[in-house]
């Protein structure tokens, strides 16, 4: 399950992720992180069964956490099933089915946006 963790440096410099891993024993996979001097936003992947525990612990540390359900959006009218996105995506979100139709596994998407300019038909976008 993907969790979007945001925290502010104003509340101190808590090692949010490290502390959560240490105290819950849940292995957290950091998929994407954007941290500057004032605030940070980190997208992590955790096993579904541990999501509640991880959310609770992170909130205790002062971070806000929400379950990320969005993924990249595909406009099926524009998509021609070429597959240009397949080798660009670092998360293996895209693949072909047996009929060479493009399929999208949104649960793997970390909203990095790399596929968007790679699509010749502008069929991919992120939520506004």
């Amino acid at each position, binding site marked *: 399950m993907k969790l979007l963790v945001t925290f502010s440096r104003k509340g101190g410099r808590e090692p949010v992720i490290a502390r959560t891993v240490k105290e819950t024993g849940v292995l957290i996979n950091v998929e994407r992180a954007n941290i500057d001097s004032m605030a940070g936003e980190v997208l992590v992947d955790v096993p579904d069964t541990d999501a509640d525990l991880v959310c609770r612990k992170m909130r205790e540390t002062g971070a806000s956490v929400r379950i990320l359900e969005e993924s990249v959006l595909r406009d099926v009218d524009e998509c*021609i*099933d*070429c*597959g*240009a*996105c*397949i*080798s*660009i995506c670092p998360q293996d979100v895209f*693949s*072909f089915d047996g*009929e*060479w*139709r493009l399929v999208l596994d949104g649960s793997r998407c970390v909203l990095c946006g790399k596929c968007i*300019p*790679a699509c*010749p*038909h*502008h069929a991919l976008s992120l939520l506004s």
Partner: protein
Amino acid sequence: MEKSIDLINTRIRDGNARVVTAEEMPAIVDELGEQGALAEVDVVTTGTFGAMCSSGAFFNFGHSDPPIRMERVWLNDVEAYAGIAAVDAYLGATQQSETRGDRYGGAHVLEDLVAGNTIELRALSKGTDCYPRTTLKTEITLEDLNQAVMCNPRNSYQCYAAATNSSDRALSTYMGSLLPHHGNVSFSGAGVLSPLANDPGLRVIGSGTPIFLCGAEGMVIGEGTQSSPATGFGTLMVRGEMRGMSPEFLRAATFTGYGATLYVGLGVPIPVIDLGVVRSTAVRDEDITTSIVDYGVPARDRPVVRTATYAELRSGKIEIAGEDVRTSSLSSFRKAREVAAALADRVRTGKMGLALPIRRIDATRRVHPLRETQRTPRVRDIMQRAVPHIGKDEEIATAARTLLKGETNHLPVLDAEGKLVGIVTTYDISKAVVQPKSGKKVSDIMTRRVIRTMPDEAVDVAARKLEQHNISALPVVDGDGRLIGLLSAIDLGKLFGGRWRR
């Protein structure tokens, strides 16, 4: 045994021709044998759906009142070539909009026309006695045009070289996004369904061959531009009426960093007249080999990393230098299948007859590079040869003195063998003075990943490196990495006035 084209056309007219797609043919030949397949199958349909930049359309707009001799013409702000009489123009697919950048181009105008959308037509003229009008602006649709003839100089490449990128920078190319360090492979072409791959000897595809073009019935005009069937890269020049085309089989696209292009759906029905045709249409993805070339090398003759069959490319990953690299297709195999199936349906139901070429295309032709009468400048022509440099174990103070003495801002750093191992600039020295803790030796403050050039590199390529990395000088090294010169932004000035020609 042979089968005449008349017999095949009679069967088509009577609605009992056996029509299969090029994807189905190999298994039929396996099952029935070559003689059996020749007796059984009358027509093999092919199809491809991919980016075909060399596409466009001729238009005749009709005369206005008062009339105008259109010298320059724009369709939705995309300029069309109007140097052909008064109210004719040719719109190329890759021509870019003057107002919307690479998100809209000639290809998008063509798609809009086929979709029935309204297009703004603008024209300018100097005005003549017979054509007094000087400006014109109106709105048109495909229905309003006298003629709208798609005429594509180079379509349906027999196969296409695949692309990868050995450099350390992501590239945006007409082969799509190429990730650094061989991060992916991008390929194009329909393989088993590719029209010319099913007739590489150009025995039955030639001038006059009826084809499926973007949903309408079209025709092969003849050899395509840049055609090189002798090397496995034949092309076709084709035409078709835009009325009758469908956005299902014609799509505008943009390759980021490259520009607009047109995805064309093209299929050729191949009459099974003899064993030669049976054999050539029995081709599979496994039999069609192409090269994977390195776009990280910015030269015309890019190095081939390896060869691969379309079966390997389509499998989703391919091995390069011991590692699995993911592959992406730019053309759509699903749509290529749709083209071949739609064409098969058209022939099967008697809507489209077949013909042998009125004139055959020369299958021995090969493409040549451009004859260049002006030598393009190379780095060696304008680089500085006597370059101040310094050893990596020298003191920073020595580096500062060398920079001052040489009146330069860039000091290549060499090891004991004279090989380039770093570079220090006046900025690095200033920083070292402000932060003395960083070290005392040149090797403590030098930049180790040096962007460099070679004497044979084209100046245009070296200049792009300066721009991309936002730097002002490149050390020039020989094949062994030894320093032989320096190319600075100032040297680029030597290109003006022809001073570089020695």
